[in-house]
């Protein structure tokens, strides 16, 4: 796989002795895109999960449909760590295009299962090797040439199953899951796996220490992608209008929603649907439809990625200025521009928060887990309607498109919060209505919806200057009052977005702040640091604007590290602007390669800075005079 060439002083060493390593290693499989290897990898992943062992899967795939290199990593972790690890102990080399560079990059002591029918020129004598003639085997296992490629992939599953001691019955269960009830496919694949197992049994001598053993840590757990989780959240959140324009890595969010709604949002009597899902012609149109629908009272959403966020800029400013609700899921990928469309980053944080010209600020919800993706998707609709604002839900490719283990999602207990909407009856009772008056002192005005027959109800929405009565104005004080109300509304949101999650440690001098998917590597890094005698406290941001707990946490810890996955410290910028008194306090740990973050990166960076050392390459563009 493509390695990060940053020096790795403390790279984990794989055990070269025969002492068994149980349920604590990573497997990486190199294949080509579009070769069907995804099913094999999923079967492997699920089989281990079903044995009660915590697993996670990460797919590193190209921006291409077929033929380019892909790496899938399965982490098996008895302790439940699910971040990427820098080194994978077991490597399965199935792609001729990368076999040489893949093998070159392996760490001494690694296990290498490789397709000996491929042209390989790199020799190593510090690996534990298992050559397997996969092409030949698949000829034997599968007479039908059309299916042979797929079968090859299942044969390597068999070899791995044998070497690691995975239970074959769990493979069968996983296959049933994968291929639903298509018995023919199940049989074909199961046979291929068994073929691989048999061959390995007869031909390979186990030389490595890695094994799986049944545990009971995954009972009742689901395995799901964050995009699907968010889609289920939207479904349960009562979305009624969803517009989109396809873009990796957000497409599968809406495509999941489409599938869900086809099943679960049909009127039982008429067969008609209670949700409008529209593939727009572009992102300018999709956000426009979201706002038109939000204005007219729907729970409306779109999902996109960086380029779409840029295209939505103008409309999002209109929503800010005119108090129009809507939900935008930004599944972040690597920018700028097209960047690396199939790689992960946290590169839109500052951009979404300040999107559009003029003075604008937008709230963000930032899930770290699939469960939060599910939960925040619902919360976003409530918040959008409550505060009459665009709400960003900031996922990333790692969360959105990788498989994550989780407890099943809880059924929502709260009713839908539809915000300050005045009905005809309300207006009858109140006898007056001014669209943009801050009646409650929280910066959030009341609204009516089009179609309300009360004569007081209709008002005119515009992106140009307007007074409290929604009338056109260019009067300086009207403008300033409006801008001040909007700023006040933003203050109100501090305690409406999800509060941070804090893990205090009274002994800790070091505080770590992270957010989104950086969480998982951070959790693991903290355990490693603790083991090294460095206790840390931890605050995980889950929303913007920040509440007062954030300042308290920063204040409390003499040294403060901020982990993020972008170059410019976008969250650091938001924190510094909000709490300038701490602007010099942040010590950046920034990962920006497109790969998912690993604990070693955090530990190494943090320890280097603790020693007063350099920040590596990140230093010279870091804040000046710091």
């Amino acid at each position, binding site marked *: 796989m493509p390695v990060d060439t940053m020096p790795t002083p403390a790279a984990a060493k794989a055990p070269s002795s025969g002492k068994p390593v149980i349920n604590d290693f990573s497997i990486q499989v190199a294949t080509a895109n579009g070769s069907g290897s995804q099913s094999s990898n999923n079967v492997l992943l699920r089989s281990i999960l079903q044995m009660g062992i915590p697993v996670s899967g990460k797919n590193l795939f190209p921006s291409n449909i077929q033929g380019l290199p892909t790496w899938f990593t399965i982490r098996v972790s008895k302790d439940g760590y699910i971040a990427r690890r820098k080194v994978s102990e077991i490597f399965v080399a199935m792609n001729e295009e990368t076999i040489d560079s893949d093998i070159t990059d392996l760490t001494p002591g690694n296990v290498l299962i490789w397709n000996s029918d491929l042209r390989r020129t790199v020799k190593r004598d510090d690996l534990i090797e298992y050559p397997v003639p996969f092409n030949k085997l698949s000829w034997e296992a599968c007479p039908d040439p059309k299916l042979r490629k797929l079968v090859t992939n299942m044969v390597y599953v068999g070899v791995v199953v044998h070497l690691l001691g995975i239970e074959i019955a769990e493979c069968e269960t996983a296959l049933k899951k994968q291929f639903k009830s298509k018995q023919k496919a199940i049989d074909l694949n199961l046979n291929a796996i068994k073929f691989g197992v048999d061959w390995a049994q007869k031909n390979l001598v186990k030389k490595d220490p890695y094994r799986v053993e049944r545990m009971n840590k995954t009972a009742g757990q689901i395995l799901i992608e964050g995009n699907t989780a968010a889609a289920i959240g939207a479904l349960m959140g009562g979305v009624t209008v969803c517009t989109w324009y396809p873009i990796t890595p957000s497409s599968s969010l809406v495509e999941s929603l489409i599938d869900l709604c086809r099943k679960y949002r049909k009127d039982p009597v008429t067969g008609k649907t209670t949700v409008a899902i529209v593939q727009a*012609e572009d992102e300018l149109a999709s956000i426009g439809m979201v706002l038109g629908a*939000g204005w007219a009272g729907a729970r*409306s959403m779109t999902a996109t990625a960086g380029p779409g966020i840029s295209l939505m800029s103008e409309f999002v400013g209109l929503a800010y200025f005119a108090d129009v609700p809507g939900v935008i899921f930004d599944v972040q990928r690597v920018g700028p521009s097209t960047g690396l469309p199939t790689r992960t980053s946290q590169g839109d944080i500052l951009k979404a928060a300040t999107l559009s010209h003029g003075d604008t600020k937008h709230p963000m919800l930032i899930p770290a887990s699939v469960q939060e993706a599910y939960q925040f998707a619902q919360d976003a609709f409530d918040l959008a309607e409550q505060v009459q604002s665009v709400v960003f839900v900031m996922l990333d490719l790692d969360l959105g498109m990788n498989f994550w283990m989780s407890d099943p999602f809880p059924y929502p207990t709260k009713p839908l919060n539809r915000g300050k909407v005045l009905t005809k009856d309300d207006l009858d009772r109140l006898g007056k209505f001014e669209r943009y008056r801050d009646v409650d002192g929280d910066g959030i005005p009341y609204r009516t919806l089009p*179609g309300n027959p009360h004569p007081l109800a209709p008002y005119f929405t515009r992106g140009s200057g307007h007074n409290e009565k929604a009338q056109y104005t260019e009067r300086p004080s009207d403008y300033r009052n409006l801008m001040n109300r909007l700023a006040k509304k933003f203050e109100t949101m501090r305690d409406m977005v999800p509060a941070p999650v804090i893990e205090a440690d009274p002994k800790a001098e070091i505080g770590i702040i992270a957010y989104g998917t950086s969480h998982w590597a951070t959790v693991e890094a903290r355990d490693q640091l603790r083991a090294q005698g460095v206790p840390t406290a931890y605050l995980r941001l889950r929303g913007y604007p920040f509440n007062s707990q954030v300042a308290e946490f920063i204040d409390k810890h003499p040294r403060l590290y901020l982990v993020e996955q972008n170059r410019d410290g976008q969250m650091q910028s938001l924190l510094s602007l909000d709490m300038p008194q701490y602007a010099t306090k942040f010590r950046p740990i920034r990962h920006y390669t497109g790969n998912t973050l690993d604990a070693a990166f955090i530990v190494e960076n943090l320890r280097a800075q603790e020693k007063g050392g350099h920040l590596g390459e990140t230093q010279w563009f870091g804040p000046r005079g710091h």
Partner: protein
Amino acid sequence: MATTTPAQPPPPPPAAPAPQKKMNRLGLPLEHYTGSVSTLCSGCGHDSITNAVIRAFFDYGIEPHRVAKLSGIGCSSKTPAYFLGRSCGFNAVHGRMPAIATGAVLANRNLIAVGVSGDGDTASIGLGQFMHMVRRNVPCIYIIENNGVYGLTKGQFSATADEGSASKAGHVNDQPPMDCCALAINLGCAFVARSFSGDAKQMQAMFKAALAHRGTALLDIVSPCVTFNNHEGSTKSYKYAKDNDVPLHEIGFVPFFENIAVDYEPGSTKEVTMHDGSRVLLRKLDRDYDPTNRLASIQLLEEARTQKELLTGIFYINPKAPDFTEQLHLVAEPLYDLPVERVRPPKPVLDEIMKGYM
């Protein structure tokens, strides 16, 4: 304060000529259909369109609260503030009225969407959205107030400016015009018409026909900009439009609620029954023309183009085309206020979904 132009009741006296009858079929006075005082230049064609809209909605007897007025940015896009002051309105961003309108009708399919745009708003920056809205057949009366220039930014050519038309400063436009009617027909639009802001009668009949239509009804209305495009050499001036306006037919309209039999000489008039039962009567003038024949409409517009004729009339009608809400198989009730039980599946559904991922 003067810079705060009122956009709400009490509405000003109607700008239209005194109404013949005091109340419409709903018992509402004309004042219920007027809006704020126009801030456009006096004589602007857009104000005449405003008046025709007021009159048509009054005559047809639409409850104002059922209407949503949508627009982009431009002098034309300001006009929704000047009619139907008792309807909600959304003056959005430049060129993006179609998206806002689409979202609004999906949220609430009971709304009668009236979209107002300019030629710059539609044919320049907004061309993509315009065409995709037409392709979807989003239910909306789409009015282009077409003056061939950007009025609000002071008179630059728009994409509907004719080849050879001269600007006020005397510069000549080199490029062929976008013909929004031809484009709409090409995309399958099921109601395509052109009028001239100087022809109040024709406009009113067209607006009523559009109200009786389901789906996107495109009305491209030549509407002279008196300040920047009303000079000699302009092909969008009052004089030019008056001199070159060739009505294709005389448009009569019998609303569904007036069960009137209309007598006409056989062959003289083409009758089209609209979706709501209203009837559009097209009385032949110079040529035989069947507005339900798409190929004919395409040929007609191409001929008009080569002959530089300003044809007005209803070019194409197809009262049967399914609109976007039908294509999407939406429930009959507006989506926006469905109760929670209808938009949040019950617990067993979540359990079933969760099971699928175990």
